[in-house]
């Protein structure tokens, strides 16, 4: 008899603890405006990423299509996995001196681990982290990007 009472008691205790848990879930069930989920693809327009968010490496250009990259290659050395390739070329400056400038700043998005070391290391601040995070493409070759825009040149007065 005693064990029977204990058995019944344990059932009620079980139901009681279940009700305590359901009090919590019930509270959120009846207050749906407190829910925290987002409707992702629909809320794209309102979605603002934090300014430091590391989405991709980009090179900033001003309105004259000029950038700050000197082609020094420091970012290439600092990248842990070879996501950056610097191809430089030498040109003749108007006063007759030879100068190496950037030809192509190649960035392999598919290999990048978004560690920020290249941005941190760049002496002129030519590259920054962009906020774009939707990077899916149909072809892997589209993930290899050239960061300096075609026809762009280095801004006047940037020191190496």
């Amino acid at each position, binding site marked *: 008899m005693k064990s029977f009472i204990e058995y019944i008691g344990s059932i009620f205790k*079980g139901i009681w603890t279940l009700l305590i*848990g359901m009090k919590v879930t019930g509270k959120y069930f009846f207050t749906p405006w407190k829910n925290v989920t987002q409707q992702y693809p629909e809320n794209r327009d309102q979605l603002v990423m934090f300014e*430091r*968010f590391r989405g991709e490496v980009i090179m900033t250009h001003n309105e004259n299509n000029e950038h700050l990259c000197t082609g020094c290659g420091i970012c290439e050395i600092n990248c*842990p996995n070879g996501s950056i390739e610097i191809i430089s070329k030498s040109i003749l400056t108007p006063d007759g001196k030879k100068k190496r400038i950037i030809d192509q700043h190649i960035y392999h998005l598919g290999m990048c681990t978004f560690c920020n070391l290249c941005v*941190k290391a760049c002496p002129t601040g030519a590259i920054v982290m962009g906020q774009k995070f939707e990077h899916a493409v149909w072809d892997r070759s589209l993930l290899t990007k050239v960061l300096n825009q075609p026809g762009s040149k280095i801004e006047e007065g940037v020191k190496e």
Partner: protein
Amino acid sequence: MSEIREIILNSDRLATDEYLVNMGPQHPSTHGVLRMLVRLEGEKVLNIEPHIGYIHSGIEKMCEAISYPQIIHLTDRMDYLSAHMNNEAVALCVEKALQVEVPDRVNYIRTIMDELSRLASHQLWWCVMGMDLGALTTFFYGLRDREKILDIFEETCGARLTVNYNLPGGVMFDIHPNFQKRVKDFVKYFRTKLPEYDQLLSGNVIFRERTSGIGYLSPADAIEYGVTGPSGRASGFSCDLRKHQPYSAYPLVKFNEILDHRCDTLARYEVRIKEMYESLSIIDQLIDNIPEGEYAVKMKGVIKLPEGEFFQRVETARGEFGVFVISDGKKNPYRVKFRSPGFSNLFALNKMAKGHKIADLVAIMSTLDLVIPDIDR
């Protein structure tokens, strides 16, 4: 009873056979690619043989080819839930080798970030633990609160999981102007939400029946197997490095080392829940007093360690994480060895789960809080 058993064992037709079952590598309760060869008699577990190496990524070997700041970004990928602590271990090791003193501000920021990651890690562990035992609801509640911490990380560090926020000599950016306000809001918010965890899961009769008395790990075994972190402390093994070898700003804060002497699954569960309260109180003590100053000391462009051997350990959310660096004076190390808590904790599993049912094995495994890349690295 024993007579019946004898008859059964002696009869040819009814003899029970032991059989081997592969649990994993693709099993939801292993939280990754871990394969366990389980020897069973009926439902009873006789022996467990963990087979690891499915996602071995050779991080230790890779470290030999890259420089120290680059090593830090690889440690994110080992125990990704304790990324801050792993980063900090390498940063502290390099600072120790070069005898660099970091500013107080760095120590404060690092400690707050450590505790936030510990909270995030324990939250994820809690919700996954409930899910392993069949309570899917907990999963959403845990992730809801974890999201707030990840937002704090994202705003200050720029990433949510693989943060890479520490550098030798400091941190990568100064804290964001909103940081203190956000953290304070979070602490206030989470103090009201943590009791919900207890109401949902801790007090539940089914949960308690399934966890109390299961998976006994004696203190002697915990020490023998090197089980550290909350799992070790639940066996009464006082192993909190934040207390015993304080680093960063831990000497300045008051907190309790949570110990439990029941040594079972429920004890490991409750130690983690109590640790969350301790983490909140540590953050409370630090967040208002972050001193002004530099957020990093200027280091050389190429960091070279002097010749020799250096070791630094920190307390991650899973236990003791150690970094051992042998340097031959070049810009990359000669050899790096990581002592990861998950590896040691995993191999005590056999001791704990022997003799229990296979369903208990899942419960025991979730309280060990395994992260597979931490084991395989």
